[in-house]
């Protein structure tokens, strides 16, 4: 471990602190309410998981570098400077026990956006070499191979061929001048290939002009999860380049929650310029098609369905009504879990936690929160719109011996469309 790495991390923390963070840290009254909003605390009862505590390295840097009194007390030896050991101690708190779900940011009485600060803290942690192995590997694969899961173009092409054959339709690739460039997450290629077919069927019926890109199909962004803006910008740039090359009007984020966050909200800021195209989530596109009457439903789902709001799509992304409109279009019996919507509980796998094998046991433990939410409504099937959530939900349901089928919202829509 080199001192140079710590200096780089320390500087990264200094770079991240802005007026909102200064306002947040000035306002914290140590009331502890964020703990009750965090599933890592509620499911373990361990006070170290209190969200605001996770930003302690950032707070120390703020206090000692950016407040007059903090600087003074540091000079007088009244406060300890941040050390590399502190970062080592905080690594599991910043990465393993935070999904950046932002639920704490909703309950803080003084209005602190704690998730915003943890995201920033990760910049310093990663730059100082304190990111978890799992995330480092995924990030390296994303840069070198093009996808965190190591999915390469041939794998996608195989899925495309398979899907074209299965549904007897054509999937456009690298078509210039379409309305939409559709992005995917590698989980959708590897684990849930039905997604590609669903999109193709829906768009065919609704007569949407769209394409995939062979140069940029991966929408997920490990750079954001690990907290390295430089890398995240590189990954976003690939999509920007593809979108500009294909001259599309808009880029569609896949169901994956943090991919949406990465392209829609962080993307322009990462690459440092406004996009010349729109970025929309697939649910926004589908709901718009629904509103325009371009989706025709053949039959309606009779099973009792409930919907899990992926944090980055709902609470942090603002796509809350669209999934409900869409489910109600195809289902007769849609029920809400308690606290659904903007206050929904995270599945436990977001923010890179699912990529971090070290956190597996903790991640499964916190699934108890989702279980109790599900138990309250006892649905026949669970719908969601994030492949990362889906993988973890499946694992969790199995772990807790719950026999509830898991559906992708896009696929559910596709399955109930009339073929005409």
């Amino acid at each position, binding site marked *: 471990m080199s001192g140079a790495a710590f200096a780089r991390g320390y500087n990264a923390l200094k770079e991240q602190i802005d007026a909102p963070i200064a*306002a947040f840290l000035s306002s914290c009254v*140590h009331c*502890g309410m964020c703990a009750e909003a965090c599933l890592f*605390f509620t499911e373990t009862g361990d006070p170290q998981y209190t969200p605001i505590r996770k930003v302690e390295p950032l707070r120390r840097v703020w206090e000692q570098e950016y407040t007059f009194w903090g600087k003074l007390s540091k000079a007088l030896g009244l406060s300890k400077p941040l050390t590399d050991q502190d970062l080592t101690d905080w690594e599991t708190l910043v990465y393993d026990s935070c999904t950046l779900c932002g639920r704490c940011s909703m309950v803080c009485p003084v209005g602190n*956006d704690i998730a*915003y600060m943890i995201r920033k803290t990760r910049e310093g942690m990663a730059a100082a070499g304190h990111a978890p192995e799992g995330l480092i590997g995924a990030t390296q694969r994303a840069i070198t191979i093009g996808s965190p899961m190591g999915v390469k173009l041939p794998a996608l092409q195989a899925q495309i061929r398979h899907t074209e054959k299965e549904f007897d339709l054509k999937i456009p690739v690298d078509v210039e001048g379409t309305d939409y460039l559709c992005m995917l997450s590698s989980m959708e290629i590897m684990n849930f290939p039905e997604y590609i077919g669903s999109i193709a069927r829906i768009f065919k019926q609704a007569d949407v002009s769209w394409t995939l890109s062979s140069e940029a199909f991966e929408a997920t962004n490990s750079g954001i999860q690990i907290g390295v803006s430089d890398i995240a910008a590189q990954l976003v740039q690939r999509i920007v380049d593809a979108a500009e090359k294909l001259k599309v009007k808009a880029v569609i984020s896949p169901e994956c929650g943090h991919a949406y966050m990465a392209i829609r909200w962080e993307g322009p800021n990462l690459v440092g310029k406004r*996009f010349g195209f729109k970025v929309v989530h697939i649910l926004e596109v589908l709901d718009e098609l629904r509103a325009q009457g371009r989706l025709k439903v053949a039959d309606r789902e009779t099973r009792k369905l409930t919907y899990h709001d992926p944090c980055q799509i709902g609470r942090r*992304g603002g796509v809350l009504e669209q999934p409900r409109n869409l489910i109600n279009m195809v289902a007769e019996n849609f029920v809400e879990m308690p606290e659904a919507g903007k206050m929904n509980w995270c599945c436990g796998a977001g923010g890179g936690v699912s990529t971090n094998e070290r956190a597996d046991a903790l991640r499964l433990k916190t699934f108890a929160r989702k279980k109790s939410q599900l138990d309250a409504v006892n649905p026949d099937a669970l719908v969601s719109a994030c492949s990362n959530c889906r993988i973890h939900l499946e694992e969790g349901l199995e772990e807790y011996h719950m026999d509830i089928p898991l559906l992708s919202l896009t696929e559910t829509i596709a399955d109930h469309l009339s073929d005409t």
Partner: protein
Amino acid sequence: MTDAEFLLWVRGPAFNIALFIMLAGIVVRFMEILLMGRKTNLAEARGSEMAGGLNTIWRRTLPDADTFRRSGFTIIAGNVFHIGLFVVIFLFVPHILVFERLFGVSWAGLPSNIVDATTVVTIVALLAVLVHRVKDPVLRMLSNFSDYLAWLVTILPLITGWLAFNRVGLSGSTLIGLHILSVELLMVLFPFTKLSHAFTLVLARWYNGAIAGYKGVQS
């Protein structure tokens, strides 16, 4: 120093010093925050920063039902002592006279005996908050010296004020003098402890709401 001299000192030079430190401190703290700046958001906005910010400033005062259920004690005790402090500070006629001297405006106060009762309730709530802070594992872990100091300088004026109003123990001048002195201690520490949340909270809530509002997200 006789108690008359003491009262004169706290009403005179000491008050001036405390007021100066508090106001200058607040301004400095504000500028420390604001001058840190914020990058322009380049993502296409879906909503309004201003609307989100303003909404969150007041909306965050009211917790949602489930948060209330989980953090009931913190919310109730917190609200009781905050509302109590508001009533005691801003609706007690002798206090309003101080604000009148400072700002030139005054408003109607509450009957003093109601303020007196509110003071007792507020003190009890603050004591409960302290017990909670010491006993609750999360709060115990989060708490540092500054938290207890802030608690102390908040409850002291309430206690001394109650004693002064009810004229317990010492002479009238000493009681009022001690009360004013304890307020001055609060004023001096106000900008430099977490008590500063009283004004930075507006910024914090605004930023939170603005970040959300820009994205068209509820907060």
